[in-house]
């Protein structure tokens, strides 16, 4: 029996398209984030509150990933932001080619910030580079404080952690300090924000940070 030695990265095709996306962002001076979380952690709500806060202060665009509907893009479009919906039709994550195709329908002239909202899933999106500047992972207090330990790849691959639904802390079984220390054990360099989309807490700080990051990209 003969053996062919190949040493090929399984996701090399995706990685190559991600590299092209990243190049496109660099050319336009765009800061691009890829927001990931489990379903229902509040990605779209954070996005809505942030867009509300950033209105008029920075030119941005949004790519929404969803398994089945365009509901999220409609929610986002209310803020006068160009929003493209990718419907994955059952696919549990976004891939770089889907983002590339979505980018083709956005006028990137003058855009400084691109927010990509991934499909709600803490496993699959961690493998697929989309070309983003960084991943932002959202964990909500209602999910408990052990999510980082259960999904270490995602927390290790992210640069920012948003702990959402902090207004519900008195009612849920979640210790803020345990959640933080679990996350920082996996990834000590995580930048952490604490938010509530009901009270608006932490949104201004997150928005300000986004604008800072975007202006340093220029």
């Amino acid at each position, binding site marked *: *029996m*003969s*053996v*062919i*030695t*190949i*040493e*090929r*990265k*399984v*996701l*090399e*095709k*995706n990685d190559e398209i991600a590299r092209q996306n990243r190049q496109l962002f660099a050319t336009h001076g765009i800061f691009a984030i890829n927001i990931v979380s489990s379903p229902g952690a509040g990605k779209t709500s954070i996005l809505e509150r942030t867009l509300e806060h950033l209105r008029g202060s920075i030119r941005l665009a949004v790519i929404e990933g969803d398994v089945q509907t365009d509901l999220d893009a409609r929610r986002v479009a209310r803020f006068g932001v160009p929003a493209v919906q990718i419907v994955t039709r059952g*696919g*549990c*994550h976004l*891939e770089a080619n889907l983002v590339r195709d979505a980018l083709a329908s956005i006028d990137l002239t003058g855009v400084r910030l691109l927010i990509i909202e991934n499909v709600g899933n803490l*496993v*699959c999106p*961690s*493998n*697929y580079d989309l070309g983003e500047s960084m991943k932002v992972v959202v964990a909500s207090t209602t999910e408990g404080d052990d999510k980082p*330990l259960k999904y*270490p*790849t*995602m927390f*290790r691959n992210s640069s920012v952690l948003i702990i959402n639904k902090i207004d519900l802390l008195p009612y849920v079984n979640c210790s803020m300090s345990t959640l933080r220390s679990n996350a920082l*054990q*996996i*990834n*000590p360099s995580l930048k952490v924000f604490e938010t509530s989309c009901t009270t608006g807490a932490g949104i201004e700080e997150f928005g300000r940070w986004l604008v800072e990051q975007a202006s340093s990209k220029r």
Partner: protein
Amino acid sequence: MHELSIAHNILEIVQQYVPPNDTRSIKTVRMKVGELSGVVSESLEFCFDAITVGTYLQGAHLDIEPIPLKSECRKCTNTFRVEEYNFRCPSCGSDDLSIIAGRELQVTEIELNDGGDAP
């Protein structure tokens, strides 16, 4: 279930080396899957078997070598196995680490049923 999409990617790579019209059949596809790759080996094997049914790859075995998570400390250069995802140097306590193994997701070898010499 991104293992399905990963299995399709593996198939595409294999086809570049051994096309469907090749007279040789494939015995084993070998790959490395890192502990921090986010891929569940059992799911990947299941998906690989499922998508190769009825193709020239039917019956080919997917042989996965699991790669443990290893880090190097940027402070004291100690290299160690990361246990329980505790990213801290057991020698000096620093958390400034680089991952040196455990992210792998690659196809390494294709073994053929062709009567050729085994290595």
